[in-house]
């Protein structure tokens, strides 16, 4: 039996008709991420990356196409606790402390929060000591880190992250990159990462999906051949730069 893809979008189209104008956010987007693979999406601002993710999560209706997460419709997969997500906006619940925000997915899935594991997530994102702080008492980057911890806390089989490291400084970003790779490898999950960092995409992903805007569409999928686990020195490897340059070319060209 063939295992279903971790994430599969088939001929997905989506048009928004807002008040300002009609936007063809996605045209005939087909993407399949086999189980256990790491995919990065890169593309100019407004090309539909977040829309792809929201559709894959079942948060947005589609005009056409089919979406399957681990073989199931998005909502069913979500209910089974298959997915984990970090949104572009941290989307914390303002009245919950850092710890209780991270516990939200566990509560939704009716799993008992394992205090040790939650604490491990908090430490992972460097928020030790801020467990009881409210979102309003954190800096922008700290809030984003809470969202990252929250995405990881459920050991998701399918992980979606929308520019999770945008507000982090370089070192922390690199650290988080490495940690993310480790967690992803340990859990054998399927990951989809939206990012503007070409190097980040290439460092983390098995395949980099390049999108273009107006209409939002996939223009190329670039394989990244490096062995796992990848270590930070890779960032200065010429082969690495070559792949990066290729991605940049596809991204900027066309």
């Amino acid at each position, binding site marked *: 039996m063939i295992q279903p893809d971790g994430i599969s979008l088939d001929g997905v189209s989506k048009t928004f008709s807002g008040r300002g104008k009609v936007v063809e956010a996605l045209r005939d987007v087909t993407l399949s991420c086999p189980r256990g693979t790491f995919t990065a999406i890169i593309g100019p601002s407004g090309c539909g990356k977040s829309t792809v993710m929201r559709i894959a999560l079942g948060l947005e209706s589609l005009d056409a196409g089919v979406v399957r997460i681990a073989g199931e419709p998005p909502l069913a997969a*979500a209910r089974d606790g298959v997915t984990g997500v970090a949104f572009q906006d941290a989307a914390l619940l303002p009245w919950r402390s850092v710890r209780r925000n991270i516990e939200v997915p566990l509560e939704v899935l009716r799993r008992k929060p394992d205090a040790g594991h939650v604490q491990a997530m908090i430490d992972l994102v460097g928020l030790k000591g801020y467990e009881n702080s409210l979102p309003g008492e954190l800096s922008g980057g700290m809030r984003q880190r809470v969202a990252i911890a929250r995405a990881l806390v459920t050991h998701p089989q399918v992980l979606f992250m929308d520019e999770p490291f945008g507000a982090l400084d370089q070192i922390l970003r690199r650290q988080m990159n490495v940690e993310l790779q480790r967690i992803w490898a340990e859990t054998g999950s399927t990951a989809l990462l939206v990012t503007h960092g070409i190097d980040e995409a290439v460092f983390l992903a098995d395949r980099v999906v390049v999108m273009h805007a107006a209409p939002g569409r996939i223009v190329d999928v670039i394989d990244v051949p490096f062995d796992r686990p990848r270590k930070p020195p890779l960032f200065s490897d010429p082969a690495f730069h070559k792949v990066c340059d290729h991605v940049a070319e596809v991204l900027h060209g066309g």
Partner: protein
Amino acid sequence: MAAERRFAGVRNALILLLLWEVIGQLGLVAGGALPPPSDILIRLWQDRGDYPGHIIATLQASVAGFVIGNVVAVAAGVIFALSPPMLRLFRGINIAAFALPPIAIAPILALTLSGMAPRITLAALGVYFVTMTATVIGIAQADSRAKDVVRAYGGSRWQVLRLVQFRGAVPSILAGLRIAAPNAVLGAILAEFGGGGRWGLGTYLLGSLGRGEPDRLWGIGLIATLIAGLSYAGFALLSRKLLGATKAVTLNAAVPTGKGDSGPLWARIGMALASVALPFALWWALIKLSGAPSMIAKTPGDVFTYLFLAPSAETAQAKLLAALAQTLPITFIGMVAGLAFAFALAILSKLSPRFISGFMPVALITQTMPLVALTPLLVLILGRGTSLTLWITISVTFFPAFVTLAQGLALVPRSAEDLPRAYGASRWTELRMVTIPASLPYLFAATRLTVPRALLGVMIAEWLATGRGIGNLLNQSRGYLDYGMIWSVAAVSVILSVVFYQLVVVVERRVLGRLGMATSE
């Protein structure tokens, strides 16, 4: 800071009290009809033997009514927030619960229920609509980003409600409870007027009315205010504790995914018909179930007959229309005035929290002091004309609107207000450009609360002081056992309230829709 502010509040209250004392001692207002606080206190002390029994009775009814009314209101609010069709279906009933004049229903309740039940019912009716509205708006305004998180984990409608919407609505619900407290006390007191019991502050007030001693009346009013005030203060404190640092950090920009009026045309028409029919059906069913005699309890059919078919229909219609012609114009003005006053206060509460904390006791007195007790004073100051009607209407309408608005203003995230501040905007510009638009949904909720109350306020003024309009007609009809007219007036006043309310809802939908904001209606 906080301590300083509290101190300033106490100081302002003291200044107010001192001013009152001087005015009272010198008999500056209404030829001394406003007693100084010291006289009221002395009188309270002299009457101390009378009070316990009355306080206990009123407390029992208002606490029971408060609890029952609010539990039902929150439950109903949740249901309505989850199911807009239900909200539409029950709109007439909801508004009726709020807009029905207590003077019309108190006697009916006294006849169909027994013991404490009529008082509890009236107290519960007094709180239901306000808390229900607060719950609905709180839930509707919940942050869609937080909802997305729960939904992304397959959270059920119920989980979204529990984890995000309900908790997000807590500040708003607490605001509702703050308004509910005085309403419950006043409801219990008004029910005593129609109940014929021996105990309760309302009963005490009745006996005292004929004595022409304002200090006694004020004493009773202040005790009622104290009961309501304690509850108000409790919920305000809880609200401050809970809210503190927990409001949203940033404004949610997401545009609500418009469901709009969905469904095929026939379903929408069916829905509209059902929402018109249901209140009448319930009215009919309640009458039948209560088993009240048909001379007293009129069904919708009876009212129709009375107004259109009976031999006396023409006279009845003429009376009703003449009264309406007197009542309606002033109602419009009163509605606007009440809302304007609430708005001004809410703004002031943002610009000068100290002033408002000093004013709050005064506001509470206007909410719990039965107007019968104040009328002599009011007519002495204002006469029996339009200005009196307006003031009474304002006092009946402003409070729920004010608290709702102030709550909306308080919920605006810091980051939104930072923007104008960073450009050196004056407090007023900040309010105008950010705070007020951001709390528009609350402004509309406040308007919706004001609309049904305005008619009630005008009717009370007519009944107590001016002797015109449908308020007077209602009171006269009671004396003649003209129940056909009583029910007609009640029905017409509710229908009018619903119509006004519906107008607000239409405007609200258009405005909020255009601005990309979630509507609770």
